[in-house]
C-alpha cells in the first residue's frame, strides 16, 4: 500500500488542477515500511506557502488572543519557533514577550489629538489634516507621506520583516496592514515585494523549512516535522540532505561528504601522484617518472640527473654512484615519499570502489528500459501463473538504492578508518577491530547486491512459468536480505562506529527501507467564491473529520501567485 496515499486520503480534484499532483502517480517502491506514521516532510510550493504558515499563526493567535499581524511579528521575532515563543510567554509573561518583539496592543486611537482637525507631523514638520496622518498601535502619529517614504526606505534596506516606528527609541513594529495600504497607494511594486518578504520569512527564518537546492530553482521549499537530520526528495525530483543541502549522502556524515567531494574534485590526488612518482627535470622542468634502472635518470630532453636529489649530473656512472656526484639525503626523502604513496593507494582503493558503484547507478535508466521491455514481452504471453511483474521493478529499485548506499559507504570508510578525522579517537587495535567488523558487513552487502544485479539481468521473458517463479523468489529473497543488510550496516555505523566517538559532530540520516523520503504536497484549497470583499482565499479546515483531506490548488483562485494577506485570518478560518 502506498504510504503517501494513506496520509492524504481523499483528494477532491477540481477540473483545472495543477500538474503537481502527478508526484503521487509515480509507481512507488513496494517495500515493507519502517514506520507507518506517514510522510513527515512536506513540499511547500508558492501556492501553499500561506497555508503552511496559517497553522503556526493560528496557534499563536488562539493562545494569546492577538490579531494575525501581531502573531506574525511575534513569530518572525522568534524565527517561527512556536514552542520557544510559548516558552518565553510562560517564563517571562505576555508583556515581556510583546515588548521584546515590538508588538504594541494598547490601542490608543481615541487619544486627545483626535479632537483637532490637524496634527503636526514631527518628521516633515508640516501641519497635516487628521485624515492624512496615521497613528500606529504604539501611539505615535505621523503623516502618511512620511510613513510611506519610511516604509520604502526600510524595505529597500532589506528590513521589511521588522519595520520599526519612526519615533526615537520606539521599538514597536509597524502594523502590516498600514504598511500595505500606504505603500500600495504610491509604490505598488514595493507593496508586492513587502508582501512576498513577509510570506517568505516563513522559509528563510525558520529552521524547519528550507528552500529546495535544485538548480534551476523549482520554487519549492521543504518542511520537516521533527528531525532535521534526514534526506528528502522534493516534488521536482531533487534528492538532498536536509541538513547540508548537498546531495543525499548517507551513510556519510555531512562533514565527511564535504571533505570527500572536495578531495575528489580538486584532483589533489593526481597532484599527489605526480609529486610521489616523478621529479622535475632540472633542465626542462617536465615531470619525469623513473621506470626502472639505476638512480641516474635521463629526461627526454637529453638531460641526465640524479633521481635521489634531482640535481643535474653527467652521464658517467655505475650502479651505486654517479661520477662527480654525491648526495646523502637518501633516507629522509624516502620516508615522506613512502607515506604519501601509502595515503595515495589508500585513497585510490576507496575511490575506485566508490566510483564503480556510482557509475553503475548512472546506467540506471538504461537497465530500467531494458527491464521494462522484458516485462511487456512477458505480459503479452498471457501466462496464467505469473500475472504481476511488480517484483521486477521492486527488485530494480532495491538494487539502485543499495548501490547508492554501497558507494557512499566507501567514502565513509575512507574517513572513518583514516587518520584525517579520527586519529585521536581510536587506538590502532580498536580501529582494526572496527574496520574488520564494518568491512565484513560491507562485503556481504556488496556480494548480495552483485547477485541481485545478476539475477535481474536474466532473460526471464524467455523462460517457462516455473523458472520465472523461481527467479521471482530469488529476487524477493535477495531484496529482503539486502534491505536487512543495509539496515544492519547503518545501525553499526550509528551505534558502534560514530556512536562511540567522543566528538559527536558526526551523525547520519537514518536508514529508510523505502528509499529517500518523498516530501508530500501540502494540501490547500483556494477557491473563488462570490463574496462582496472581492477576491477571497479560503483555506479549508475540515476540523470535523480530524483527518487532513484538503482540496488541491486551483490556479485561478491565486490571482497569478499573488496573495491577499489583507483578509484577517478569522475570516479565512471561518470555513
Amino acid at each position, binding site marked *: 500500500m502506498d504510504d503517501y496515499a494513506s496520509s492524504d486520503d481523499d483528494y477532491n480534484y477540481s477540473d483545472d488542477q495543477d500538474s503537481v499532483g502527478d508526484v503521487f502517480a509515480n509507481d512507488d517502491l513496494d517495500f515493507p515500511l519502517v514506520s507507518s506514521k506517514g510522510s513527515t516532510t512536506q513540499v511547500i510550493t508558492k501556492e501553499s506557502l500561506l497555508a503552511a504558515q496559517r497553522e503556526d499563526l493560528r496557534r499563536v493567535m488562539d493562545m494569546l488572543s492577538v490579531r494575525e499581524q501581531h502573531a506574525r511579528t511575534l513569530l518572525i521575532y522568534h524565527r517561527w519557533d512556536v514552542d520557544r515563543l510559548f516558552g518565553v510567554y510562560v517564563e517571562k509573561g505576555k508583556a515581556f514577550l510583546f515588548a521584546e518583539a515590538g508588538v504594541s496592543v494598547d490601542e490608543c486611537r481615541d487619544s486627545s489629538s483626535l479632537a483637532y482637525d490637524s496634527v503636526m507631523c*514631527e518628521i516633515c514638520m508640516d501641519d497635516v489634516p487628521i485624515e492624512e496622518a496615521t497613528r500606529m498601535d504604539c501611539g505615535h502619529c505621523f503623516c502618511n507621506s512620511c510613513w510611506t517614504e*519610511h516604509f520604502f526606505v526600510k524595505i529597500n534596506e532589506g528590513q521589511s520583516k521588522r519595520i520599526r516606528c519612526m*519615533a526615537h527609541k520606539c521599538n514597536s513594529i509597524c502594523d502590516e496592514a498600514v504598511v500595505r495600504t500606504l505603500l500600495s497607494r504610491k509604490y505598488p511594486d514595493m507593496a508586492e515585494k513587502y508582501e512576498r518578504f513577509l510570506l517568505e520569512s516563513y522559509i528563510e527564518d525558520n529552521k524547519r523549512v528550507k528552500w529546495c537546492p535544485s538548480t534551476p530553482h523549482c520554487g519549492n521549499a521543504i518542511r520537516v516535522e521533527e528531525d532535521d537530520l534526514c534526506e528528502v526528495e522534493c516534488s521536482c525530483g531533487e534528492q538532498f540532505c536536509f541538513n547540508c543541502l548537498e546531495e543525499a549522502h548517507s551513510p556519510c556524515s555531512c562533514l565527511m561528504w564535504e571533505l570527500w567531494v572536495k578531495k575528489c574534485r580538486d584532483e589533489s590526488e593526481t597532484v599527489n601522484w605526480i609529486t610521489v612518482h616523478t621529479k622535475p627535470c632540472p633542465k626542462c622542468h617536465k615531470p619525469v617518472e623513473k621506470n626502472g634502472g639505476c638512480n641516474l635518470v635521463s629526461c627526454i630532453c637529453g638531460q641526465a640527473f640524479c633521481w635521489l636529489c634531482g640535481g643535474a649530473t653527467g652521464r658517467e656512472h655505475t650502479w651505486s654512484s654517479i661520477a662527480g656526484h654525491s648526495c646523502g639525503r637518501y633516507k629522509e626523502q624516502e620516508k615522506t615519499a613512502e607515506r604519501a604513496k601509502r595515503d595515495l593507494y589508500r585513497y585510490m582503493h576507496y575511490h575506485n570502489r566508490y566510483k564503480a558503484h556510482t557509475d553503475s547507478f548512472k546506467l540506471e535508466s538504461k537497465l530500467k528500459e531494458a527491464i521494462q521491455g522484458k516485462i511487456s514481452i512477458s505480459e503479452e504471453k498471457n501466462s496464467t501463473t505469473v500475472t504481476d511483474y511488480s517484483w521486477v521493478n521492486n527488485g530494480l529499485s532495491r538494487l539502485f538504492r543499495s548501490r547508492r548506499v554501497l558507494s557512499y559507504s566507501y567514502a565513509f570508510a575512507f574517513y572513518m578508518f583514516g587518520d584525517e578525522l579520527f586519529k585521536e579517537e581510536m587506538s590502532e587495535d580498536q580501529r582494526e577491530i572496527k574496520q574488520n567488523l564494518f568491512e565484513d558487513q560491507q562485503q556481504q552487502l556488496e556480494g548480495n547486491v552483485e547477485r541481485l544485479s545478476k539475477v535481474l539481468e536474466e532473460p526471464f521473458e524467455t523462460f517457462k512459468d516455473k523458472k520465472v517463479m523461481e527467479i521471482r523468489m530469488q529476487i524477493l529473497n535477495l531484496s529482503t536480505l539486502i534491505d536487512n543488510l543495509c539496515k544492519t550496516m547503518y545501525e553499526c555505523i550509528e551505534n558502534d562506529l560514530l556512536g562511540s566517538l567522543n566528538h559527536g559532530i558526526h551523525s547520519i540520516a537514518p536508514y529508510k527501507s523505502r528509499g529517500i523520503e518523498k516530501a508530500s504536497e501540502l494540501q490547500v484549497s483556494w477557491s473563488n467564491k462570490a463574496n462582496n470583499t472581492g477576491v477571497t482565499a479560503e483555506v479549508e479546515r475540515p476540523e470535523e473529520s480530524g483527518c487532513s483531506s484538503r482540496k488541491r490548488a486551483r490556479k485561478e483562485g491565486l490571482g497569478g501567485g499573488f496573495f491577499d494577506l489583507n483578509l484577517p485570518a478569522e475570516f479565512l478560518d471561518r470555513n
Partner: protein
Amino acid sequence: MQASRARLFKEYKEVQREKTADPDIQLVCDDSNIFKWTALIKGPSETPYEGGVFQLAFSVPEQYPLQPPQVRFLTKIFHPNVHFKTGEICLDILKNAWSPAWTLQSVCRAIIALMAHPEPDSPLNCDSGNLLRSGDVRGYQSMARMYTRLAAMPKKG
C-alpha cells in the same frame, strides 16, 4: 528629494528663529547647498573639552530624514568614539538607531552628550579607548585637554 528639501528648509527657519535658545550650538547652512551644513559646538563644561570650540560638517542624504545625515568633526579631537584622522563619529543614532524624528540640532546635542560621556567599548580611536578602559582617566583627560588646547581654542595674541 522634495521632502528632504522642505524639511531642511523648515529646520533652517527653526534655527534662525531660536538662534539664542541654545548658546552651545551654532548651526549654519551652506549658502549654495541646503544639503551641506556646518556647526560650531562648545565643549561641555567639566570635561577635557571645556573651553574648546569644535567644528562639525554635516552631509545630508537625499532620503533625509528617513536616513541619517553624515557628520564628522573638522576640528581635531581626542575622543574614543571619534576617528583621530578623519573625524568620523561612532554614534548609534547616526547609524542603526537613527529615527526620522531627530533633527540636525538634536544631533548636535547628542554629539555634545557623547563628548561628555565617551563609550570606550566601541572605540574608533583605540589609544583613547584603551586609556579609559585600563582605568587611566587622568591620562585620557590630559591627552584630550592637550588636543583641545592645540586645535579647538583660539590662538592668543
